[in-house]
């Protein structure tokens, strides 16, 4: 309606580098998509909170939480799928920039969810923006991952009395809700302000949940949860991972354009 100040054809300055197509196709995908990307969420925000807020723009089809690819815990973004385009537009117009769980969240048109996009693209498993942050953000696991590692190294140096690496809690996601949602590197700050949160609502996602019609052959949720565990072990060799991981995290790009 307000064509004076906003070009209605221009939906997003952000270009996802993992979009499999050219600029034109990307724009077409955004114009017709019924998916929104939600960013800058707290690690503690649940699907039900997202549901309550986003259903005020229209009937929701699905919510896909963004997960840390190592710990399988929420890492601060999600996709919300609507049934209608109009509702999708309204979610972008009316929810972006408002507060969810004490944080201003960002809502953008998304070109469409595909399996794999639920995982964080940062080296440490979460979002890239959480790699390099230097601020302390209790809603997103405390310090950025690099700073956390730095702190850990320092502590290790001081803490030689305790001796071995074994004194560090392994990176297992069961501490989610009590401790920082990220890697749980012994920094408990993140969770402390969230006591009483129903932290049993941990989310895991099995890859095949997008194919409902083959349901009978599918593993159960419980099963895949058990299977998920091996993935969530601490990384063995940080240097080894570096080459395989890219930096083109959407978060970072999104931030740049802001």
């Amino acid at each position: 309606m307000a064509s004076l100040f906003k070009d209605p054809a221009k939906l997003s300055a952000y270009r996802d580098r993992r979009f499999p197509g050219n600029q034109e196709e990307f724009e077409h995908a955004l114009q017709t998509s019924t998916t929104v990307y939600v960013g800058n969420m707290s690690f503690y925000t649940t699907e039900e909170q997202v549901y309550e807020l986003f259903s005020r723009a229209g009937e929701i089809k699905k919510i896909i939480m963004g997960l840390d690819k190592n710990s399988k815990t929420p890492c601060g973004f999600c996709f919300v799928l609507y049934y209608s385009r109009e509702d999708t537009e309204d979610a972008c117009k009316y929810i972006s920039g408002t507060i969810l769980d004490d944080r201003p969240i960002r809502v953008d048109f998304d070109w469409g969810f595909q399996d794999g996009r639920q995982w964080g693209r940062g080296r440490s498993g979460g979002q890239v923006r959480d790699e390099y942050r230097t601020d302390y953000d209790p809603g997103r696991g405390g310090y950025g991952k690099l700073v956390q590692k730095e702190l850990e190294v320092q502590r290790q140096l001081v803490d030689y009395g305790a001796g071995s690496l074994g004194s560090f809690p392994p990176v297992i996601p069961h501490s989610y809700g009590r401790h920082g949602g990220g890697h749980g590197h012994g920094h408990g700050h993140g969770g402390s302000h969230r006591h009483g949160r129903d932290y049993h609502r941990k989310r895991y996602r099995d890859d095949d949940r997008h194919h409902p019609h083959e349901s009978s052959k599918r593993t159960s949720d419980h099963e895949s949860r058990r299977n998920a565990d091996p993935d969530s072990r601490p990384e063995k060799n940080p240097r080894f991972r570096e080459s395989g991981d890219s930096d083109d995290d959407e978060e970072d790009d999104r931030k740049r354009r802001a």
Partner: protein
Amino acid sequence: MSSWRNLLLRIGDKTPEYGAATDFKDHIETCFGAIRRELDHSQTEILEFLLACAEQLPHKIPLYGTLIGLINLENEDFVKKLLDKIHTKFQDALNSGDCNGVRILMRLMTVLMCSKVLQLSSLVGIFDTFLSSAATIVDEEKGNPLWQPCADFYITCILSCLPWGGAELVEQVPEEIDRLMVSVEAYLSIRRRDSDTGLFFFEKDDGNERGSGDKDFVEDLWERIQALSSNGWKVESVPRPHLSFEAQLVAGKSHEFGTVSCPNIPSPPSVPSGISNGKQKHEAELKYPQRIHRLNIFPPSKTEDLQPIDRYVMEEYLLDVLLFFNGCRKECASFMVGLPVPFRYEYLMAETIFSQLLMLPQPPFKPIYYTLVIIDLCKALPGAFPAVVAGAVRALFEKIADLDMECRTRLILWFSHHLSNFQFIWPWEEWAYVLDLPKWAPQRVFVQEVLEREVRLSYWDKVKQSVENAAGLEELLPPKGGPNLTLGADGADNNEHALSGELNNLVKGKAPVREIISWIDETVLPNNGLEVTLRVVVQTLLNIGSKSFTHLITVLERYGQVFAKVCPDQDKQVMLIAEVGLFWKSNTQMTAIAIDRMMGYRLVSNLAIVRWVFSLENIEQFHTSDRPWEVLRNAVSKTYNRISDLRKEILSLKRNVLSAEEAAKQAKEELDAAESKLTLVDGEPVLGENPARLNRLKSQAAKAKEEVVSLQESFEAKEALLVRAIEENEALFLMLYKSFSNVLAERLPEGSNARTLHELKSTEVDVMAVDPQEPSTMEVDNENQKPPNSQSNGGKKSNAYNVGEKEQWCITTLGYVKAFSRQYAAEIWPHIEKLDAEVLTEEAPPLFRSAVYSGLRRPINEA
């Protein structure tokens, strides 16, 4: 953006484009200078953009009008083209029923008349066209009074031009204005007063739903215009920049404006009856909706220093900003707070926004838009607006018992969302007294539901913390919300636990669905009976899916067939829903979501949901909780969404069929042409083009034909689905109304002839011998402008709520009857014959019938 564009766009604003200049005169001169330089080589762009600015920033129309007046002195031809364009747009807007377009272009024409661009007689000519069209519509003989909303719209358009050009008209053609005023008055005497009680924000409980002193929207505007006329046509809120340029402008050539014509309105139904009239009236009301229903929240002292017309003009400004800057947060907020008027208007702004948020039957935009606007205004005016919003909340809270149920729901959703954006800070201690009210007292229920929604948006402990300053209020918080596995709860029924464990293992062991089903068929059902089987299966699967929304969906997607196997018919589905309600009894959100998704996967029907909502356990909560209503709202709205999606698909398929047919026709013609062509082959003339091309054309034509057939088929399939959906809709509304009618017949006071809510309330009051007046706590203005009840301002608040439980139950339920009828009126009208025959009969409780009628905006005496 080039500078002339910026200057046009920003004219009148405090922006860098205009430097230190704050005077409209300076702005217009600067802008004119820039435009004049560009006029020769960017004529088309300037014309388009100038018009777009005027249309989308209507509060600046006087500035644009003067600017066009100055351009007219330089380039008459440009202005002529502009007027032609306006003429085309205006006629298009009239034809298509684009009310905003008509209204705004008329204002622009009025202002152009002030700037000597448009001939006065042309404007008066349009007024006359509108007047005669309006008079014809309401004429019983010649017109069709059912379309009075259209006639009212025309009259409103005329009147709403007068603040912008009344002074000029009176000065130059006083006798024309007199004639106009007389004609409007004559129109007002013919038309019927619009007594749409169905759209009131508040339930009047003085027995007489609308006092004779009440005015409807047109009469109200008319009164404001009369006051304006007796005030010498002075309007503070409308800038008159053309006066500064009068000496120049008089030299301009006034152009003529071609005539316009109002579109014909449909003829009255061939067989007039209550029903067919009602349907057509409803159609007219949808097409020409009233723009604002004024909501008086604050005491008149906060806004009454304004002239009556200024209130109207301000509302126009604010509504237009809301309309055109939907989706542009920054501009919306800055235009809202920076309107070009010499007075403060926070209270009026709050009232206007709340009037939209709560508008019945529907606001122009989703309620969440107004939530956002209020948030942004609180940030833009941190010193002033939050307090005004808080005042509005307090005032509405005082009147909550009379507030329409739909408005109440919207207010709860808005308020909880608003608070979630401001750290959940609210002086809850002010409302701690609701704890002493009975659990059905509307204020108490309001607080409880706001807290429920806050918890959903946040989390339990956070919200508990936020009410700590209000002793005891945490009592109203919802339970902490976990799932509630109740297998074998009554005694040591290890059997159910064992079965549940087996099912769990099957699921964990990735057993295929058919294996689970045969396990149920062979082992569980024969030995345990249906009830146990259903409970074990449903609760176990729900428990597996209890961790999140996505877990729930996953379970429903994978094991949908298991649910369907155990609950194949409506009776079992009702049991299934009851089991969901039990499992999630301490989490209303998950209850609602689970039921909603089950309906989505067609595991339960909307009819089963309605039956569950009207089960005894839920009926008992009707007046104390939103829980059953939320489930019911979801079910009806999902049904509605399905049907409107189908309609949209059918519409687009129809278009596709047409274009495919066109393509097929073309392909065929091409083929025919090619076939009839003579080609020389080996020196001999042969019929038909070269074989390769011919073959290609042939296959193209065949393909195009196939395409048509396949589109036609899917079109027909969808049509069939629509027919089924409409039948389902009818069944839904029949059951819904039957259920309402039955429970109300059982519970409305026996032998009572109560025809109004007022009588209903006083039944209990008389018994209790309490003063039947409402508690005198209203700092608010009554909607009907009556002086407030005998007031003891400053006296102690009387917090007692003197409506008994049974009566409150009836009042709440009737409120929802009205709300559902109103919201889905367009879907209900097509089935009204059936409803009349089966539900809305003479035997139905009169209060129930009048709630339905008022929701449908159907006059009760025409039944």
